[in-house]
């Protein structure tokens, strides 16, 4: 198929998804756009926000708008890995013979909502590691492929510290984006109240199936990125590595660990999606800068100084952006 046609279909699909989500979710444009960006880049999303802001609703709506299988797991401290992955249970066959049969867990779906993921123990959280990175699980000593596409949309509550288990770094790194869900504005809140207190229930229509989504994800990967733009992504990642020659001074001062290469991958893929969404055929510096906050904020581990001085990862990322110039050659006219 001609790339121009594929791009047209991408834009149409994106717009349709956006529109259907908008029928249910009021406001949160940036959150919805970031979520869709991660979706078309083939990445998982961690949504963080106080209760009641519509995180779960957003993911559920997305599941409904896509013609994909959708499962939801409510993470609790007593949740076991087998509750997620599935387990072998003794079943009696039609012949009356008893045999072990694998009972798939809720992870066997295209779209998985891991609600309040930080309430489960690290052991249970780690059950997702293999599935998120390699789209497969190992259960009962047997490797089982998950269906494509496979997305994990997790939510977590930042205020409840009692009975929660912070996600380990390895787990966090596997999320493409970490999206902070903020409070709605007054107008948005009024609209939410109006919609949710009346008898009318909005249901999104299905606009895309799994195959179409996989095609569009493949399309995204083909968007051209110039070497100097890619170099900018590399320099941004390297500027977060504390103690190195390329590190930004703020990173050296306030970071314990910087971004992994997955951070750079996330930047480029998100940039590609953004370029296509905006009708361009190449990635620019601005596309990378737009993705740098959600792509880096969960990958940077602050040190004690940062905690003591109240430095946040978002503020630190802003410092890194200020430190790293877009073009390594500088901004003056050539020869001047």
């Amino acid at each position, binding site marked *: 198929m001609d*790339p121009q046609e594929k791009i047209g279909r991408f834009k149409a699909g994106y717009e349709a998804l956006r529109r259907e989500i908008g029928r249910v979710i009021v406001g949160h444009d940036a959150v919805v756009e970031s979520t869709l960006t991660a979706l078309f880049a083939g990445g998982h999303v961690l949504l963080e926000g106080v209760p009641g802001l519509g995180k779960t609703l957003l993911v559920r709506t997305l599941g409904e708008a896509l013609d994909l299988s959708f499962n939801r797991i409510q993470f609790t401290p007593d949740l076991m890995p087998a509750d997620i992955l599935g387990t072998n249970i003794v079943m009696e066959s039609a012949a009356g013979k008893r045999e072990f049969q694998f009972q798939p867990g809720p992870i066997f779906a295209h779209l998985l909502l891991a609600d309040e993921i930080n309430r489960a123990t690290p052991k249970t959280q780690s059950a997702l590691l293999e599935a998120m990175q390699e789209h497969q699980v190992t259960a009962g000593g047997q490797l089982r492929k998950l269906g494509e596409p496979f997305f994990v949309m997790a939510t977590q509550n930042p205020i409840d510290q009692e009975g929660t288990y912070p996600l380990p770094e390895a787990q966090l790194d596997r999320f493409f984006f970490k999206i902070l869900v903020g409070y709605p504005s007054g107008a948005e809140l009024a609209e939410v109240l109006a919609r949710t207190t009346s008898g009318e229930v909005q249901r999104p229509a299905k606009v895309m199936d799994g195959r179409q989504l996989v095609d569009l994800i493949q399309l995204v990967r083909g968007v051209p990125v110039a070497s100097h733009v890619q170099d900018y992504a590399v320099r941004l990642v390297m500027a977060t590595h504390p103690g190195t020659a390329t590190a930004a001074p703020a990173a050296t001062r306030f970071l314990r660990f910087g971004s992994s290469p997955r951070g750079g991958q996330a930047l480029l893929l998100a940039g590609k999606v953004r370029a296509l969404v905006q009708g361009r055929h190449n990635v620019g510096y601005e596309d990378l800068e737009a993705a740098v906050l959600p792509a880096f904020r969960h990958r940077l581990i602050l040190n004690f100084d940062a905690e003591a001085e109240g430095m946040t990862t978002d503020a630190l990322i802003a410092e890194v952006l200020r430190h790293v110039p877009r073009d390594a050659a500088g901004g003056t006219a050539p*020869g001047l």
Partner: protein
Amino acid sequence: MSDLQIIQTALSETADRCRWVAGNRQLWRGMRAGAVLALILLLAWKIFPFDFRIVVAFSMAPIAGAVGGFLLGWFRKPTLQSVARWVDARLDTRETLGTALEWASKPQSDPWQNLVLADAVVTVKAIDRHQLLPLQLTREARWSLGLLVLIFCLAWVPEHRSALDEGLAREERNIREAGTQLREIARRSLEQRQPISPGTREALEGMQELGLELERKTLTRDEALKDLAQNRDRLKNQVEELAKTPMDQNLQRAAREGGQAGLNPENLRSRMEALKKSLGTAATPEQLAKLEKQLEKIRDAAQAAQNTKGAAAATARQEMAGALGALEQEARDLGLSLPQLDAAMAALAANDPSRMLQEMQKALTDLDKLRETAKAIEQMQGQMEQLGKNLAEQLGKGQMEAAQATLRKMVRELKGQRLNPEQVREMLQELEKALEPASKYGDVPEDLKKALARIKAGQNSGAGESLQAAADKLAKMSEQLGDAQQMLAALESLNQASAAIGSGQGWRVAKGGKPSTDPTRQPGGGVGTWAADGLTEEAEQTEPWDNMDLSRPGMKARGLSDRGEGSTPEGMKPDRVKGTFSPGAPMPGITLKGVSIRGQSRVALQEAAVAAQSEAQSAVTQDKVPQAYQGTVRQYFDDIKK
């Protein structure tokens, strides 16, 4: 044209524009850097004295910086990729051009290539190069122009110089001036006459080199005096070498005075004939001076008559006409032709006083010239009279050229014709008389004796050869005398240079001229009829002069004639002196106060002696030593050096 070509053409044109803009900007930056440098140097020069040529050289720095900057900016051609990236950044085209250029180099099968190229074509069509890269006066340009104005203004601010600095600068100027003079004197001397002796030539060339060194190098007074002293020693040695030739003291003295050794009767006669021909009259200078005075009186009367009117004016004109007529008659009697007088009379008759005055002025000028010529002829006649009448007199007076001419004449007579006994007798008498004065000329008497014997024996040709040998020896001595004259003149110049540098008063003052603040100023710069101080022109004096305007045959001229080293006046001779000098000696003993220093000297004795001699020379030239002791002081330090 393909999409890629469109993009490349547009970017290439933008790159060219970038070069011009870069050239413009670097031009002003270079000028600013040069102007800062020039300003710093000018400021430094205003406060601290150093060679002004450095300031002049660096005053070109803004121009050099501008040219260098422009070339630096213009020659650096940017790559298309860098231009594309810069345009992307300036126009916020989301890296479309950079990506397109990079993707254009990928294989054609890439389906995205056409898409990004098409995007880039749209972008390049929107580029307005003149707006994107305007050629305008930058901030650097304003700075540069401001600095240049500041430099221009600062140039008019008088520089701060301490008395010490001014003294050093004056000293440096004196040294350079002395160097120039020495170099010129040596050059002229070598041009006018090539020395016979290689030593003399080397010494003069050494003096020329010394002049060049003093002129070009920056030397202190002590260093310059030391160099001069060394050179003077070398010249003295050379003169001493020349003095070893068998010549009488009187001859050497004649050589020092540049006297009559070079006088040749034939030359003098021919010059006199030429002058008489140009004069065209037998009038004496006195007669001409009388005419001149009469004409001046008539001119003064004519000037006075200009202010009178009526009958008085007519009477004055009549008197002037009469006086002019009488003067013209007098001139005609002397054989002079003065057409200006006729013209003046015609102007008087036409009542044109201004033309009459002009004609009279012309007549005065002509009379003045004629008088000078007549005077020169008279002087030559005096010189002719001074020339010896025969060989003996010529040899006795040291007139070697004349003696040579007489000898050669004798040789011609001996070889060319048969002499009668009377002539032979006269020649023998002349030669015999010349034997005694010829004893001052080395082997010349021997040749004369041989010639006498051969003439007596009737061997005229052999006698001619002997006389020719004597003439050749005299010619050689004459050349040596010429060398000695050159050396003595050079030595005098070196002494003058030492005096000029040592006294710190410059060449002119050391030479006897009046001090002047500006040696380049010319006469006529004063106010009214008065010239400015120090502007009297004095011709270079090369021989003894006599300003009494009296003819004194047989008397030495006054002025710069050699009066010897001088003797200590009786009243100044010490009678109670401590030390090793006996009373009556010109040099008193010197008692040094202070601690004696023992140990090894780190300075070579010769250098110390030269330095001491320089200091002594400096002291002598600055009149720190009484005049009576000056000769002794010089001799003392010369002896130390030896």
